[in-house]
């Protein structure tokens, strides 16, 4: 169902990779602001494709993808990139911190790679505050290889939040974590999403965590559609 207040809306979206063999059809999907949504499904079911469409990393063959009032499916690549950097925070499965940057610089990375964002003292202060709130303030000068798994995930979350995005997309952030750490990670994501009024979209394999989300989107393997 699509509501006019949805922050994310997909309508009659069809997507297929040029190599063929996989087709994704989404008749209609709406996600409300500040909603916490889990995306589940077996490998190859299209979870990553779905979030890539929502993030503007992929463009659908047909249909409309709209995020925060921007018609991503119609926007240029440049426009989508600048929209993404300002409005979407990514948390990756392996956290994907850059080993040659300190924790502080990893958090500030979106400001380093974007001409649209300006790295001001306020932004630096915000990075310090984020680090403080996630208990890694004393690690700001360190390099990622010197951090524990838990510290690295906190840095990744700080990086996702530094631009104060309206949408946080986490692609299997608990995939490599044990049950307890995975629960902590989710707690952390829920907390920061709530604190920053952000919508949270989490791809996961872990069905044990699903009851903590507002909604779950299940992807049917290699087929067309989503069932809520």
């Amino acid at each position: 169902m699509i509501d006019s207040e949805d922050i994310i809306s997909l309508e009659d979206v069809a997507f297929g990779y040029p190599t063929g063999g996989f087709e994704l059809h989404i008749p209609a999907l709406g996600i409300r602001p500040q909603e916490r949504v889990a995306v589940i499904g077996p490998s190859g079911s299209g979870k990553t494709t779905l979030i890539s469409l929502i993030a503007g990393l992929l463009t659908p063959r047909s249909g409309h993808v709209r995020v925060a009032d921007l018609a991503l499916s119609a926007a240029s690549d440049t426009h989508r990139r600048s929209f993404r950097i300002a409005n979407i925070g990514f948390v990756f499965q392996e956290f994907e911190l850059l080993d040659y940057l300190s924790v502080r610089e990893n958090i500030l990375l979106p400001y380093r790679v974007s001409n649209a964002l300006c790295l001001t003292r306020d932004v630096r202060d915000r990075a310090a505050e984020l680090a403080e709130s996630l208990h890694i303030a004393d690690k700001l000068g360190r390099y990622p290889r010197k951090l524990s798994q838990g510290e690295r995930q906190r840095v990744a979350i700080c990086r996702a939040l530094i631009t104060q995005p309206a949408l946080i997309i986490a692609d299997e952030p608990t995939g490599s974590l044990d049950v307890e750490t995975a629960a902590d990670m989710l707690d952390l994501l829920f907390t920061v999403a709530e604190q920053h009024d952000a919508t949270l979209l989490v791809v996961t394999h872990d069905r044990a965590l699903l009851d903590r989300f507002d909604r779950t989107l299940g992807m049917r393997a290699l087929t067309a559609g989503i069932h809520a």
Partner: protein
Amino acid sequence: MSGALYLAWRYVLYHRVKTLILVVSLTVSMVLPLATHLLIERYDQQLRARATKTPLLIGAPGKRFDLVLKALYFTDAQVDSVHMSDVEELRAGSWGTPIPLELSYTVQRGEFPIVGTTLDYFGFRKLRVAEGTLPLRLGDTVLGADLARELDLGPGDHIFSDQRQLYDITQTYPLKMKIVGVLKKAGTPDDLAAFVDLKTTWIIAGISHGHQDVVRPDIDPAMIMQRDEEGVVTNPGIVEYNEVTDENIDSFHTHAQPEELPLSAIIVLPDSPKAATILKAEYQRLDRAQRMLVPADVVDELMARVIRVRRLFDACFATIAFATLLFLVLVVLLSARLRAREMEIMSHIGCSRWTAFNLHATELGIVLAFSVALSGVIAGLVVACVPQLAHIL
């Protein structure tokens, strides 16, 4: 600092070893041709500068390169002798000023040349004394600026000529020469030479000598082998002086005739272009025992050969540069593959394609900039540290 520049800088700093290997590889491929080019350029200038200021040169027939290099740059090349009689012939002809050079001897175990000449040489080369005087007297020497600095010697000190034949006791002993002055630095081979009066070189050669006064009544009779109206023949045990002093200077003399007094070469300063032409024509005569050269022409010919050799080097350097370029391309491609995930992450975050390209290009630019700067510094140091051309030759 822009984002791409900052990230690139952090990357090369973090991956220091990889960066260093790249910088060194590029530097080596750049510094070799650069240093070679600069050195050849510098030597070309030095050679030509001295050659063009030396209008004509007379020497014995033989290798003309050796003669010019010996007479102008004091190399250790062996040349046959011309003689003082040739100088006198030139003086008698009044076509120009001859400046004789005797360059057969050295100081400091062959490291530095002794230049036997006349005072005209100092005027011709515009050599001025920084301290002391020119070698006005027999046995005096004046040192070039670099030689004096290197040996830490100055006026009042002494220096010995080199032993000519270590195991031949019939040879004359090294001459102890009094340093009477040090020349101002000229930036030429003159800076590394010890200048003496021409007659002093003949003392070193054993052609002239000074010894005990054999006509004194108190001389040991055992020293006199024969005394008659033609002269006195002495025992070899008679004391020959190996230093010219106020007391013994009058005893120095030569028994040789001008045609027996050897010279390495004669610089000729013709009075006019016409005089130069006449002199050249005169010395082209087949019955002449001497040859006349125009040093600038000989140096041109020499440099043409050097440049031919340089082209060979250039081809080698080009090959090295090509191999280095391939190596660099390989490194860039491997690096791009290794960092594909990093670029993907940046793309996910929202980094533009241009910024990603800029990041790679800036990293490469930093490596190149360091390599170019390092090559410049090393090439400059090589040129600055390599000694005077005279030392190389």
